[in-house]
């Protein structure tokens, strides 16, 4: 049958079929178009999610894109809470219209347990679920049904986001119209969710690694010492910042170094053995000096543990500086040695006793002073310190003092020595409490036996001295009384003898022959001589007692003055007096005047036989004294008797040659000695004499 043969009905049928196939084609075409769009959506989403920072941002993108691309009006995400008991609404959501805000707000108050409500069912089943019209659902299936009705929400689709079998989130989408399940739409959204799960899973894994890395870096960098990890080829794999800081090497340098490069000398070999030990036995520790880049050595304690890292055996460990500990140990050792040295070598005794008197410790000095060969012997033989006390009640006094004031200072006691001798000690004692609260007495004992004896000796000497002073005072008084009576009483009889001899001579001159007169004259001469002797002796004795009044003395004037006085007593003589300016002296002017009187009188007397008497007075300052002399050209003397010159009653000339009492020079010597000076004389028989005396310079005598 040709086309024209076909019946109208046939044609109509064909037309219908054609139309149908055109419609089918059109549908097919539309479908194809939808698939293309969906693939495009998927690609866009995958890229966007891949670039997103975290799950929240990824969810936000997914909800928005899915709604826009596939015609959903509202999208939300439910996320398991921290302990995984319920689903909570994520803060991210999407809505095409503001009319859904209220639904959103109220939904935030909801949570869904596993298997309850649409999100709960998807959490349990891990499968997508489509509800054509939630407003028709009973409350048991859809708890938010009343709210959904009010919001006008109808069709709903829920899909799970799964990563590593775990539900990360449940996505819910709603439309404002009801719709039968569209399998293709379910597939697309499921594909998006699946994609999302996979991306998030990777992201989370990266994050975990990053966190772990961060944690381990923080951990090893916060270690107080150095941290190191090196493999069995001695290559450093990891180390901390302290390692770089303390060693002074950069990371790049360390990466090329050998662990042994940080040690020198003996330590190098030692550490090498220790490393071997770690690889052989699993772990070890070592103390050695860690040498930094600038050569500085610091004592360290190192640990090493064998670990497997990337299928390689490695050594992981730490090093901590023990410099402070070492220094503290050294200081403690020194302090102990110092204390020990003081204790052992002290001259003073040092001891510790218990409260009831047992000797805990004693130093060698304490034992030695008490006559024991060693502290050991002392402690062994003296069961109780009380036994040492000569007067045990002193121990009670000591203890009572310590208890009241906590210490005792300069407490004098007598102790028995091993051989029974008694020694004096000066005790300084205090209570000692250690951390466990035990109390003992600790103190020092100074041997003051010699001091005590010296003190007693001084007291004795003082008493003797006082006695001597009293005796001396008495003797002085006696002497004064004696000289007083000499002065007064001895002269009266002499005066009587002289006086009555004279009267006798005058009254009875006519009855006396020449011999009688001569004898009476001898009596008179000797009486007068006796008077002179008494006067001179009294002068001498007074010199020793008279208090000196010191002043500056113009010696030249004084000497001249005395000379003039004496000159007048010898009017017929020819005298030549040579004097030049003399140094000023400090002394008692009356006494020094007496010196000049005696010296010049002697000079005049002993030059009597000279036609012209030459008398010279000179003086010169030396370092500590002034030397004066009086020189004459008189009779002189024999130097071999010069030491007798200054003695009392010592005379080198006969009474016939030169009259005199032999007291004059003794008086000079006494005066000069009282001034702290010296006297001496030089001379030669018939060639004159020189008499020297000195007076100290400056210092008032």
């Amino acid at each position: 049958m040709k086309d024209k043969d076909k019946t109208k009905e046939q044609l109509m049928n064909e037309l219908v079929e054609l139309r149908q196939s055109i419609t089918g084609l059109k549908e097919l075409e539309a479908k194809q178009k939808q698939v293309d769009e969906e693939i495009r959506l998927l690609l866009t989403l995958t890229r966007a999610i891949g670039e997103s920072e975290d799950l929240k941002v990824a969810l936000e993108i997914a909800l928005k894109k899915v709604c826009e691309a596939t015609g959903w009006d509202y999208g939300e995400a439910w996320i398991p809470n921290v302990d995984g008991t319920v689903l909570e609404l994520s803060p991210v959501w999407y809505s095409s219209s503001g009319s859904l805000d209220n639904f959103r707000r109220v939904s935030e108050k909801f949570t869904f347990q596993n298997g309850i409500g649409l999100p709960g069912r998807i959490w349990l089943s891990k499968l997508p679920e489509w509800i054509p019209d939630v407003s028709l659902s009973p409350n048991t299936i859809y708890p938010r049904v009343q709210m959904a009705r009010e919001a006008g929400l109808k069709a709903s689709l829920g899909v799970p986001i799964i990563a590593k079998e775990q539900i990360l989130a449940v996505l819910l989408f709603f439309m404002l119209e009801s719709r039968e399940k569209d399998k293709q739409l379910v597939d697309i959204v499921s594909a998006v969710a699946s994609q999302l799960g996979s991306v998030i899973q990777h992201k989370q894994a990266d994050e975990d690694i990053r966190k772990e890395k961060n944690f381990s870096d923080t951990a090893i960098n916060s270690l107080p010492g150095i941290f190191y990890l090196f493999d069995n080829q001695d290559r450093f794999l990891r180390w901390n910042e302290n390692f770089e800081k303390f060693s002074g090497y950069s990371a790049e340098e360390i990466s090329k170094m050998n662990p042994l490069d940080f040690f020198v000398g003996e330590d190098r070999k030692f550490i090498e053995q220790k490393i071997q030990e770690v690889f052989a036995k699993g772990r070890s520790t070592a103390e050695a000096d860690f040498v930094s880049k600038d050569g500085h050595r610091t004592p360290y304690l190192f640990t090493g543990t064998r670990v497997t890292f990337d299928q390689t055996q490695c050594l992981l460990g730490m090093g901590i500086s023990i410099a402070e500990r070492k220094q503290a140990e050294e200081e403690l050792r020194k302090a102990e040695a110092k204390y020990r040295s003081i204790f052992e070598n002290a001259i003073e005794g040092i001891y510790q006793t218990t409260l009831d008197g047992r000797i805990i410790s004693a130093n060698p000095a304490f034992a030695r002073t008490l006559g024991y060969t060693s502290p050991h012997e002392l402690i062994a033989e003296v069961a109780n310190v009380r036994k040492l006390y000569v007067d045990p009640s002193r121990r009670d006094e000591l203890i009572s003092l310590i208890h009241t004031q906590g210490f005792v200072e300069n407490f004098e006691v007598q102790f028995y020595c091993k051989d029974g001798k008694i020694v004096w000690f000066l005790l300084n004692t205090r209570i000692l409490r250690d951390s466990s609260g035990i109390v003992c007495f600790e103190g020092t004992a100074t041997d003051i036996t010699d001091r005590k004896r010296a003190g007693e000796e001084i007291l004795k000497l003082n008493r003797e001295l006082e006695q001597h002073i009293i005796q001396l005072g008495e003797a002085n008084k006696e002497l004064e009384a004696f000289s007083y009576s000499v002065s007064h009483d001895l002269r009266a009889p002499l005066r009587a003898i002289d006086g009555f001899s004279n009267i006798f001579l005058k009254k009875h001159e006519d009855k006396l022959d020449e011999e009688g007169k001569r004898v009476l004259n001898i009596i008179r001469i000797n009486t007068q001589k006796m008077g002179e002797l008494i006067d001179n002796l009294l002068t001498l004795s007074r010199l020793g007692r008279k208090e000196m009044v010191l002043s500056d003395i113009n010696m030249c004037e004084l000497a001249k003055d005395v000379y003039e006085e004496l000159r007048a007593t010898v009017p017929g003589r020819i005298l030549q007096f040579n004097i030049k300016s003399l140094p000023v002296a400090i002394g008692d002017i009356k006494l020094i005047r007496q010196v000049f009187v005696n010296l010049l009188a002697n000079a005049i007397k002993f030059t009597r036989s000279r036609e012209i008497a030459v008398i010279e007075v000179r003086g010169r300052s030396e370092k500590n004294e002034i030397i004066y002399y009086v020189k004459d050209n008189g009779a002189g003397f024999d130097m071999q008797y010069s030491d007798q010159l200054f003695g009392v009653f010592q005379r080198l000339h006969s009474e016939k040659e030169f009259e005199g009492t032999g007291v004059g020079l003794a008086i000079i010597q006494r005066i000069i000695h009282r001034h702290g000076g010296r006297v001496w004389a030089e001379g030669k028989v018939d060639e004159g004499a020189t008499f020297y005396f000195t007076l100290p310079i400056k210092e008032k005598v």
Partner: protein
Amino acid sequence: MTNLNEVEILLVEDNPYDVELTLTALKENNLTNKVHVLNDGAEALEFIFATGAHAQRNIRNIPKVVLLDLKLPKVNGLEVLRRIKSDERTKKIPVVVLTSSQEERDIVKSYNLGANSYIIKPVDFNKFIDAVAKLSLYWVLLNKPPQ
């Protein structure tokens, strides 16, 4: 015996030989007629203050000079001196200490108590005569006492 109200020189001296020597010296200078000698300090005080044995004497009649030894029985010379010089009625009497003592402290004490002179008796008789003569002439003849 001299009229005790007309005594010009009062010699207070216990040593009889010194008394004789002194009188000899005075005689050589014709001064003996108005000399009165007392041998101890107590009597000297009685004489001067007109008490005791000398109560009948007029205290207003004072000697021209008292020659006073220091070493005296009963009351010593320094005490006699002190009493004379501390009494308004007698303090104007010139007192010459005539003694053997050369002690500085005796000299100082004497002058402090108001002695008018201090003479050490020389051992040499000629010097002694000379000294007594000079002092007597001075105090008896030359010195002008207040009326």
